[in-house]
């Protein structure tokens, strides 16, 4: 029995200035195909805290069923765009009990296949680009397992976001040759995606995510 074919996202070369792609609603994205990628709740048993497991045992989370993803190459940078339905946006952390909407793209740090699509393993880190509503810059993190993520102080990832029409649109940008996971033309890199719905107090490991790696096929 063969494994099901992995979903494949093609990041094609787009002959537009990169700034146009960094605009979430930019018309340049019309030239790129968009894939609807199914999401499932992250496993409760993987939450590294008995409190979190107890508090969320009967409370649904990660209920967003899909995120639309497209990718492109322009100005020698990779752009990844995520779009998802959100009728109750939480645009910033404004109170003790308010959690902002967020999303992330994750790669095996070595760009190679072979590890579970979770938060990395000892000796096999993952790299995450995370956007959180209300913040100007994304977080770039590495992790070698649940609860181990560490934010990098310096990184080359930029982000832009927009909420309109009951939908978030978030674009990440990273120069192809910037430090981090290898994203060179012609590479096929495993990628994962996650979305946190702030209106449901989702944070940390409580999210909707891709339970399997997606192949990000970067055009030559």
């Amino acid at each position, binding site marked *: 029995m063969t494994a099901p074919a992995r979903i494949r996202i093609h990041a094609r070369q787009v002959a537009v200035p990169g700034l146009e792609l960094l605009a979430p609603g930019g018309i340049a994205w019309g030239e790129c195909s968009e894939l609807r990628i199914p999401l499932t709740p992250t496993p409760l048993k993987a*939450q*590294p*805290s*008995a*409190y*979190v497991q*107890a*508090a969320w045992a009967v409370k649904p989370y990660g209920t967003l069923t899909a995120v639309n993803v497209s990718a492109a190459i322009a100005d020698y940078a990779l752009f990844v765009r995520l779009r998802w339905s959100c009728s109750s946006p939480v645009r910033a*952390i*404004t*109170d*003790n*009990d*308010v959690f902002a909407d967020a999303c992330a793209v994750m790669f095996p740090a070595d760009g190679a296949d072979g590890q579970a699509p979770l938060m990395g393993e000892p000796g096999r880190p993952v790299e995450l680009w995370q956007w959180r509503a209300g913040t100007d810059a994304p977080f770039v993190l590495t992790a070698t397992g*649940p*609860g*181990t*993520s560490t*934010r990098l102080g310096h990184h080359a990832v930029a982000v832009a976001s927009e909420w309109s029409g009951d939908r978030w649109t978030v674009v990440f940008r990273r120069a192809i040759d910037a430090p981090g996971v290898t994203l060179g033309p012609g590479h096929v890199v495993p990628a994962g995606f996650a979305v946190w719905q702030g209106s449901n107090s989702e*944070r*940390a*490991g409580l999210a909707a995510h891709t339970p399997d790696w997606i192949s990000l096929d970067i055009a030559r």
Partner: protein
Amino acid sequence: MGTLTSRPKRQLAMVFDLNKCLGCQSCTIACKTLWTEGPGMESMWWNIVNTMPGRGTPRDVFTHGGGYADGQPVPGNFPPLREYGEAWGFDQEATFFSGDVERVPLHPKEHDGASPSWGPNWDEDMGGGVYPNSYFFYLQQVCANCSKPACLEACPREALYRREEDGIILIDEERCHGYRFCAEACPYKRIYFNPTRAIAQKCISCYPRLEAGVAPACVRQCPGRVRHIDYMDNLEGHPHKLVNEWKVALPLRPDFGTEPNVFYVPPLAPPAFNEAGEFDETQPRIPTEYLSEMFGPGVERALETIQVEREKVARGEYSELMDILISRDWNDLMGPFTQNPAQLDRAPGRA
């Protein structure tokens, strides 16, 4: 995250004598001016004193879950800032420069202009009971550095940790990502959220002072000599004497299951008046059920012990317990932390 595999080598402990607190908030201000003046900390009160019986801070403080039941974590919530009390603003321009000071009183406003409906010690001195049997006492709270800290065990990132040398629980602000499970899990609601930095913050037991031999600010600044501090393993220290030997210092809400290391000498009130206006020695002014709920089943025995020892002193006899509680020498309250901060080569650094 996960479980605590070992206890610290030593455990710092404090005892607060509820019979001596004046409700003056010197401790509160000492803490505030020392630790919580930074951005995003405006509404934090790592030390807080509330009138009891009362709803506390945040409002209905002991009803928000957290802690443990039968050894299992109890889900909790983290009340919104308004339930703690915002750092209110005051329109001084309107009051003092409108030309109509009598009609424009200085009045606190929340960030959206609303009048506050709750804040620290909001129900000050209201207390309980019905005249002439009304009563109240002040309850001081700091982080209790619990031996079974629900906050620490709730964090999925191990951003909280316990110091091996004294059991103080701290938050690593570099590791904290502001998830706030710790604040939900603390049944005493002693963890705050800094919205500017998106991290959790809490009482640090003045550990930089302790490391310089100086007692915490709340202890040293207390004019009522309410607070005793020492390592619990010091058999001559006040916490050990009051908690383990005399058994007059009790944990707050032990039913929460976190084994706090701050203990309270329960309030001893006069008997209740009967309908003839005379003392009824059989009826306590403060209902025993209430005190038992607050301080556990040992409260009746503790109060009896204090009463017996007081009467001994009244007869001119010696009482070790009364000597400890009175602490005629101020330094006796502070265990090994008697260093005068003004006489240090330099002031202890801030965290």
